[in-house]
């Protein structure tokens, strides 16, 4: 057990700087994938979530199908879809980073969309009526009255989903993206110290996700009326 620490120490720059942060000779990085995936996935999720609530059936039905489809399929499957189909559609090979990012954004937007929908539905009906009464247009009502309040209600579920997404980024290693998991695999192939290496990256992931979940709980307590 203790003898495992030297393998971590020797490979720490590779694991953390290349694998976790994403700087070095390979394109990679858990953080470098997770942050754009969270931001873009949330933006797409807002459109999907609002689409699910649209009065027009030609917007509502495709948005509903989108959500039901991606929630019925494993993420691994979606990653393979992107890996094979995006190069065929664009007629050229695509780097793993873009394949993984596309897969995560499209997949997570289905889950984030449901959170946005629930958040918007949690805003009191009178708020919309009041906004209409003071003369705001539909878009203005959504942007300046409904969404800001909905966002506040959504924060705990959003952070929970961001934690899920953060953990899911490890699956990018399946198509060869050099994230923390792949970096540990590479070191393990050379040094064969699986116990120390996989336990170490488990702890690194845990520190990130657990602090995010503590933050979610803190926000939840602060926002709850009491």
């Amino acid at each position, binding site marked *: 057990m203790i003898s495992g620490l030297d393998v971590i120490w020797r490979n720490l720059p590779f694991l953390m700087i290349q694998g976790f942060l994403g700087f070095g000779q390979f394109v990679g990085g858990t953080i470098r994938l997770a942050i754009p995936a969270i931001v873009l996935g949330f933006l797409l999720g807002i459109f999907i979530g609002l689409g699910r609530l649209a009065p027009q059936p030609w917007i509502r039905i495709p948005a509903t199908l989108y959500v*039901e*489809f991606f*929630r*019925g*399929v*494993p*993420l*691994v*499957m979606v990653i*393979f*879809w992107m890996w*094979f*189909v995006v*190069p*065929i559609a664009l*007629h*050229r090979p695509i780097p793993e980073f873009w394949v993984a990012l596309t897969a995560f954004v499209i997949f997570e937007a289905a889950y984030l969309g*449901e959170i946005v929908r629930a958040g918007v539905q949690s805003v009191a009906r009178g708020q919309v009526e009041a906004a209409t009464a003071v003369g705001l247009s539909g878009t203005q009502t959504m942007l300046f009255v409904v969404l800001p309040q909905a966002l506040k209600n959504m924060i705990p579920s959003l952070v929970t989903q961001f*934690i899920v997404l953060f*953990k*899911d*980024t*490890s*699956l990018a*290693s*399946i198509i060869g993206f050099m994230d923390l*998991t792949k970096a*540990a*695999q590479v070191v*393990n192939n050379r040094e064969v110290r*699986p*116990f120390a*290496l*996989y*336990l170490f*990256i*488990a702890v690194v*992931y*845990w520190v990130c*996700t*657990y602090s995010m*979940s503590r933050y979610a709980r803190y926000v939840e307590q602060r926002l709850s009326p009491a």
Partner: protein
Amino acid sequence: MNYTFNWSVLWTGESGRWLLSGLIVTLELSALAWLLALVLGIVSGAFRTVQFRPVRALATFYVEFFRNVPLLVWMFFWYFAVPPVLPEPIREWMFDHGLEFWAGVLALGVYSGARFSEVLRSGIQSIPKTQMEAAAASGLTTFQAYRYVILPVALRLIIPPGTNESLNLLKNSSVALTISVAELTFQTRQIETYTAKAIEALTAGTVIYLVLCLGLASIMSWIERRTAIPGLITGGGRRR
């Protein structure tokens, strides 16, 4: 890269057999992991309500550590890191009986058990304390109170999040392909490798997953509607 479709690769050659055996492995893996997760979820959930502090701390550690680390890392951990430190006879047995399958069951079951634990806990916590007090006041024994008052409500409350977590487990079983368990996603990739027809193979796998997940979800939402208590549990049949 021009792509010509050839859907016949799905019903010629070995494809059909591969898909079927992949489906069976996915179901076996998920069912065994589900049972393990249920036991671990109930035990750790119960441990978290015990007065004795070390037991409570152990259960909390299990739940918080295992559910907050990616499943893929657990797959590698149980497959590569655990067998070398096991006693010889157990290791022999595992190597003889498909090490990757059992490592997959352990990884998926232990990971999902931590998630089930949270579902059970929030289900039980959502029952008001007064229910138990009212049951005692009307002369029921503790066993009767659980059998006729607490459990009938708790089990119904747990159906929607429990279904959701069980479907997550089923979908997550696809991660076992990383330790070469020959489940459905693995077999889909196999068809792609042999026929070079990626879109056809992925479509077949995707449709099977969709039918499984949406089918199970609609059965469970039917059960939920059938067992709903009027006026107590609202919002019939939505997942999540």
